């Protein structure tokens, strides 16, 4: 008796369904430059195969391609991969990461609102791509930790050198991880949560 077109929508597989008792969900955003392993990290800890949601954003285009000086609107589609972890029968954690174009994330209405915090995933071979995202998180007041994804051919740097290079305050944790590994990725999330806990116990501007 259902509409034909709605029948074509495939919902979650039975093993991907949340229990009826699921009462609240929280989110953490995984940010970082292109190709740094955000989706890899999401995939390695998620209980579901990562899903993709796409938002279309419009913004007034800058004057560069605008010879007549007429303000035009450009539409950009931003894709976000996300995964899920059931923390208990009632509490669910969602992890959002995206394959690239991080400058658009901050236009995504509500992505960071209400987020517990963020993980900035960095590749030491391309530290410079992390500057912009760290600056934006600081501006937005989103608490974050920095996780160094240890690529096999990347040089390992002392934490304090990275801290100086990224111009990070002393209180922001820097951890190493292998985003391909479930436990290692999980530990990054735990580092973020412990950082949030220490802040909740001894509030000061993050």
């Amino acid at each position, binding site marked *: *008796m*259902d*509409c*034909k*077109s*709605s029948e074509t*929508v*495939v*919902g*979650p597989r039975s093993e991907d*369904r*949340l*229990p*009826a008792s*699921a*009462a*609240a*969900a*929280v*989110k953490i955003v995984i940010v970082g430059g292109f190709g740094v392993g955000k989706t890899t990290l999401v995939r390695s*800890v998620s209980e579901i195969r990562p*899903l*993709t*949601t*796409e*938002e*279309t954003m419009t913004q007034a285009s800058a004057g560069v391609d605008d010879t007549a000086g007429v303000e035009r609107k450009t*539409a950009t*589609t931003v894709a*976000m991969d*996300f995964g*899920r*972890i*059931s*923390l*208990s029968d009632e*509490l*669910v*954690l*969602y992890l*959002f990461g995206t394959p690239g174009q991080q400058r658009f994330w901050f236009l995504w*209405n*509500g*992505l960071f*609102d*209400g987020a*517990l915090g963020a993980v900035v995933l960095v590749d030491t071979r391309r530290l410079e791509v992390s500057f912009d995202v760290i600056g934006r998180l600081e501006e937005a007041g989103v608490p974050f930790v920095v996780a160094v994804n240890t690529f096999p051919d990347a040089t390992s740097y002392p934490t304090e050198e990275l801290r100086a290079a990224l111009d990070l305050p002393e209180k922001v944790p820097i951890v190493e991880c292998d985003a391909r590994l*479930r*436990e290692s990725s*999980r530990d990054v*999330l*735990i580092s973020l*949560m*412990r950082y*949030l*806990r220490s802040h*909740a*116990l001894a509030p000061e501007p993050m």
Partner: protein
Amino acid sequence: MNDSDEEWDEGTPERLYVITGGRVDSSDRAGLDLVTLIVARQDPQVGMQPELASILRVCRSPLSVAEISAYLVLPPSLISVLLTDLLADGRVEARTPDPSLPDIALIEAVIHGLQKL
């Protein structure tokens, strides 16, 4: 994006406009977040708008706005508009995250859950 249908691309503004009847994102009003959990309170009805029927079908068990968006292949902003209607009619229930800042109990619960992984 979607390479299946050039004529009627999933993401074209025209299609999205038709689905929402031209309304814009009202998620702020409804207090809907990407991770608000939605649960259907009734089965799809005959003659219901297909997208609404699909939401009721996939939400037989709790599902986040982000997941609904992924399964229906529609932007979260549009899903929020549709959910606002369903919420107003009492056809779905929304389980919203606590709007207050993360308190220590919630943080502890998340740490505890992660440690069990």
